């Protein structure tokens, strides 16, 4: 009897000791390089130190497209990671892959972690939520598009530096004055489609595509050749012809042009702040993007860009619990505030936004809360929650190709947008055919 008791204690001790050391590993593939990657590692270290059961291993797996390819290949070979960071244009692809992912709502519910979708900023969470209110992926790094002006250049042109153009009409007038004052490059933009088609539509509360910008079904078609869109693109084409708009490429190449003082006005991601702050030798301000004041319903709210975290299917149950705990950790207001302040990405929960406000950060850094304010200007409508188009990587490229033709003076805006719609719809139909 004593021996049995001893043996049982011994076994129990072994199990306990084994359990204490056996950490469940959670593999997270991300695309945050450079300083952002450092911050990711910091977050992960904090989480790992805060508890003993799980260990998150963050691996930089290349750029967004590369890590997605890697995950696809790994999934097909049965060795996918637990968490994958996917850019916002890949949302539809991930969503449609029902057997490959597990919705975040389900992961949190299964692990019995407290999770209230309403605690998240609506325009942030809305992008990644299905129509039934289930959050499919965890919004990790989101930004929105902002309008930057070079205040010194404004002064030189005789414009009021503290008043950035609020409407496109004012913008046109300011552009002409800047050009006349000798400014070589008046306006440039990063992410042309994100700014001038996608955010433009949301900001004016007009659809980008049918079926609630694709969120309602795979049979969506593009609506970006409406008179308003044509008017806007034609306006940009005119500015380009007059030399008041200098096209700088499809990603964020424009930011360097603004930061160096070459261009006086810029629309690009809120994340450009960090670059500009470091490099600009002039006075500048960050503002809401302009709108057409003769359009009813404008300005509405802008939509996000960035990436979210998806949970891959086919992993062990214990790992899902760890994922849930990690997401709960990431949602804590202090963690969110830290991430928001260090990176310039927006805080994803209202609590985090409040906490940051209370800490006086926005007073010390005027304008740092502009992105959130622009995103939450009004409760989102079905035109401004975001978008969900299949194969949108190719779709956006098509749109930008057509825009480039207009900027180069090769096509007029109506033809370009009609072509963009035609080619874009072909891509959507292929996606639909495959995922029906």
């Amino acid at each position: 009897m004593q021996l049995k008791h001893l043996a049982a204690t011994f076994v129990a001790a072994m199990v306990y000791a084994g359990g204490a050391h056996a950490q469940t590993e959670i593999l997270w593939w991300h695309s945050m390089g450079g300083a952002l990657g450092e911050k990711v590692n910091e977050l992960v270290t904090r989480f790992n130190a805060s508890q003993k059961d799980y260990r998150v291993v963050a691996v930089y797996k290349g750029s967004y497209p590369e890590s997605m390819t890697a995950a696809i290949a790994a999934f097909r070979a049965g060795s996918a990671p637990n968490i994958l960071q996917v850019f916002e244009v890949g949302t539809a692809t991930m969503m449609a892959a029902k057997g490959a992912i597990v919705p975040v709502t389900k992961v949190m519910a299964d692990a019995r972690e407290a999770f209230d979708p309403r605690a998240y900023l609506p325009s942030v969470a809305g992008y990644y939520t299905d129509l039934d209110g289930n959050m499919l992926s965890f919004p990790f790094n989101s930004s929105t598009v902002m309008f930057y002006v070079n205040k010194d250049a404004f002064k030189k042109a005789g414009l009021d530096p503290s008043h950035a153009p609020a409407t496109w009409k004012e913008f046109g007038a300011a552009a002409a004055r800047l050009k006349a004052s000798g400014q070589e490059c008046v306006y440039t933009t990063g992410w042309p489609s994100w700014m001038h088609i996608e955010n433009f539509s949301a900001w004016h509360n007009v659809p980008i595509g049918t079926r609630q910008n694709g969120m309602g079904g795979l049979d969506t078609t593009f609506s970006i050749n409406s008179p308003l869109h044509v008017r806007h693109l034609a306006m940009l084409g005119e500015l380009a012809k007059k030399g008041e708009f200098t096209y700088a490429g499809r990603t964020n190449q424009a930011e360097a042009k603004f930061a160096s003082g070459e261009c006086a006005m810029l629309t690009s991601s809120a994340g450009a702040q960090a670059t500009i702050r470091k490099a600009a030798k002039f006075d500048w301000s960050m503002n809401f993007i302009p709108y057409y004041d003769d359009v009813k319903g404008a300005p509405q709210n802008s939509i996000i860009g960035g990436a979210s975290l998806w949970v891959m299917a086919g992993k062990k149950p214990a790992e899902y619990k760890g994922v849930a705990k990690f997401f709960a950790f990431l949602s804590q207001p202090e963690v969110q505030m830290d991430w928001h302040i260090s990176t310039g990405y927006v805080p994803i929960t209202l609590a985090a936004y409040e906490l940051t406000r209370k800490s006086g950060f926005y007073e010390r850094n005027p304008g740092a809360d502009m992105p959130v304010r622009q995103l939450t200007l009004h409760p989102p409508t079905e035109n401004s929650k975001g978008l969900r188009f299949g194969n949108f990587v190719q779709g956006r490229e098509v749109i930008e190709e057509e825009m480039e033709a207009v900027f180069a003076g090769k096509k007029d805006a109506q033809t370009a947008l009609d072509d963009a719609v035609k080619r874009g719809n072909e891509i959507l139909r292929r996606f639909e055919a495959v995922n029906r």
Partner: protein
Amino acid sequence: MEKRTVFRSGWLPYALVAPQIAVTVVFFFWPAAQALWYSFLLQDAFGLSTRFAGLQNFAVLLHDVHYLRSFEVTAVFSLLVAAGGISAALLLAAMADRVVRGALVYRTLLIWPYAVAPAVAGVLWAFLFAPSIGIVTYVLKKAGIDWNWIIKGDQAMLLVVIASVWKQISYNFLFFLAGLQSIPKSLVEAAAIDGAGPARRFWTIVFPLLSPTAFFLLVVNVVYAFFDTFGVIDATTQGGPAGATQILVYKVYYDGVKAADLGGSSAQSVILMVIVTALTVVQFRFVEKRVQY
């Protein structure tokens, strides 16, 4: 192209060839066959729902005006890169062969780019030619040239051609130089004594003897221009503006790796494979005939 003296053995040649064939079958043919199979399928990125689509992927491609334009762009690009790389290298090698002083220095300095990874080379050139902060851009602007390859398709093509040729010059240069240095001096001297000038000597004696090298380099450069240049394009123009530098292999890479469209990408790979195979066969059949071993 055939040896007169050969060995005969039952099993030995197979044994010698086996390792390479084995690796080739496992890591090339098997995956390539699968890639080929994908071209007949319509599938989502994760392979969860697959439908047989017959030739639909091909039909879509061949009706796409932009894809057809890629053929033209690729032809122009490959021609410029192969011709540019080979002729520039030949000129440099011929000159390097002539000089006695500083030959080693020249040679050393000219082969550095070879050590640079294509991904990195693209970044370097994009940096130099960046529309606002690029040094070359600055110089061009001062010279009155409006350098803006982001909008002007021709300039974008020029940029990627230069970046691609740059990487290949070192490679071609080395091969040509080696070839030149192996030509018996006696032949050249004899021609000189007969009164042939340097240019005549080059074209009638040197160049024909250089032909095996030139042929090798032609094949390699064409393959390089068709395939290995997508890293450069990815780092600089990404096929833009408006498809001006959209070469076939870039579209394959883009659709497969960036857009996760495996069916379309595989169909394009098949077409590309057919083209390059045809080109290579042509080269071997017709050009090699004129090569003197």
